[in-house]
């Protein structure tokens, strides 16, 4: 099997799993308890918190554990809306956010908030001039993702952070795809809140965190016990927390090397596909993109068929985001960068990990090539296109 769907989820690294292991059947204490058995679990929790904070230049006490990226996004956006409503009810976001942010914004619209969805350019980069123009006196939150999950485009966070600061507006970023993959520094970038999820960087599923800058007010999302300084109730998921901490540690240690290696593989992949498969295009930015992300459109074919045939060849890939598979709508991200529907339907996302090899890439390109040919041979759109071209040729 060649697994090229690392943006959907990653394999838990063996080291991370080894770190988690003792916390299931041995160090199983509830860390909030008073006895020394629980103290060991609490120590592990706090060590994890520190590793996580270190990677983005934050303090331990600015990290709140959650059940994943979606909860972090929901919490950040809903809580900012709630806490700042005296100031105003206007939120700014982009058209290419993950559904965890978009659907939360739509929910808030029903609650009487106003949301401006700022457009992106053809590479998926937010239009900073539009963003600046959207800022109003009653704007309370700007939430723009660090890097897009589908097309991998990295956003100009520093510029957004500066605009937010100038306007005295909270800045949240969904860094679920970026954290652990590219360097991020909350102070340098002016980020007030940041969401991340363990399973996107070789940590476990079901654990994530929200960074909240000291001094930024944040309400509870889950009410109950006094865990996480009374901000997020629920018995701490110790193995999960240890796992995400270990994954953060690993990510910090190997960041540069991984980035260079994956970027080289990715660029090789992109070069080969564009050169060898006609009527293909790269979606997202040519260089300001996640090291492991390549996203293509192949005209005249549809994504799901492509994915199933790839699966039959042992290649795991995706089209759009995993959680919207089965939906009939083409990706909102591809539409936002200006692709027509029929082209947006024919997308393929290949996302690499540290384990991906050059052989994997080359084999995948060979297979994709054949499948695209096959699907085109049965595509009425391709038939029409060829006929029209022939007609043009004859007329000329």
């Amino acid at each position, binding site marked *: 099997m060649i697994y090229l769907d690392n943006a959907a989820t990653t394999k838990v690294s063996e080291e991370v799993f080894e770190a988690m292991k003792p916390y299931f059947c041995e160090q199983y204490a509830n860390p909030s308890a008073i006895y020394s058995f629980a103290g060991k679990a609490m120590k592990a929790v706090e060590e994890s918190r520190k590793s996580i904070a270190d990677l983005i230049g934050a303090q331990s006490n600015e990290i709140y554990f959650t059940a994943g990226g979606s909860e972090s996004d929901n919490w950040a956006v809903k809580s900012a809306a709630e806490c700042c409503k005296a100031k105003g009810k206007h939120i700014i976001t982009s058209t290419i956010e993950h559904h965890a942010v978009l659907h939360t914004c739509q929910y808030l619209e029903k609650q009487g908030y106003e949301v401006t969805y700022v457009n992106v350019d053809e590479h998926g980069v937010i239009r900073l001039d539009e963003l600046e123009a959207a800022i109003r006196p009653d704007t309370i939150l700007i939430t723009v993702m660090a890097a897009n999950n589908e097309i991998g485009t990295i956003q100009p966070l520093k510029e957004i952070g500066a605009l937010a600061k100038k306007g005295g507006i909270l800045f949240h970023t969904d860094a679920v795809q970026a954290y652990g993959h590219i360097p991020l520094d909350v102070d340098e970038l002016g980020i007030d809140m940041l969401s991340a999820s363990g399973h996107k960087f070789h940590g476990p599923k079901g654990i994530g965190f929200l960074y909240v800058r000291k001094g930024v007010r944040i309400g509870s999302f889950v009410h109950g016990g006094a865990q996480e300084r009374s901000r997020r109730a629920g018995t701490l998921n110790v193995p999960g927390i240890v796992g995400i901490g270990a994954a953060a540690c690993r990510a910090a240690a190997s960041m540069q090397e991984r980035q260079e290696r994956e970027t080289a593989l990715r660029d090789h992949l992109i070069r080969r596909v564009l050169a060898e498969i006609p009527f293909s295009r790269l979606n997202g930015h040519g260089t300001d993109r996640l090291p492991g992300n390549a996203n293509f459109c192949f005209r*005249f*074919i*549809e994504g*799901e*068929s492509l994915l*199933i*045939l790839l699966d*039959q060849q042992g290649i795991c890939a995706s089209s759009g985001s995993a959680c919207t598979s*089965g*939906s*009939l709508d*083409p990706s909102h991200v591809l539409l936002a960068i200006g692709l*027509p*529907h*029929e082209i947006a*339907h024919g997308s393929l996302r290949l996302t690499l990990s540290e384990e991906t090899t050059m052989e994997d890439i080359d084999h995948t390109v060979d297979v994709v090539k054949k499948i695209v040919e096959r699907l085109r*041979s*049965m*595509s*009425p*759109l*391709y*038939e029409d296109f060829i006929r029209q071209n022939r007609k043009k040729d004859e007329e000329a």
Partner: protein
Amino acid sequence: MYSEKVMDHFSNPRNVGEIENPSGVGTVGNAKCGDIMRMYLDIDENGVIQEAKFKTFGCGAAVATSSMATELVKGRTVRQALEVTNKAVMEALDGLPPEKVHCSLLAEEAIHAALWDYAEKNHITIDGLEKP
């Protein structure tokens, strides 16, 4: 997600291709929704479908339903072909996931569209066939 029958018809679709000078051809669906089916029929003077071919742009279910639809109409009379409903196609495929049922509707429409074209070309009316 898909039944074995669907996977079989998707992986080894029957009757893919075009028919030169077909008795009838119909194209349904639109690229915006992600599914287009084109069905070619070769119908002899007795009104029996001698050959059926298709081309489809769409998901696994779209390809499989097209393939199954061509199989179901082949060798049938025009009248019998009209009875190949989306239900019949679905049943023949051992079912479809709920969000893919529209593909079987498309297959039914594709048969109707090809038959309509055949009727128009031959200036006949086929009872029970409406303009697609």
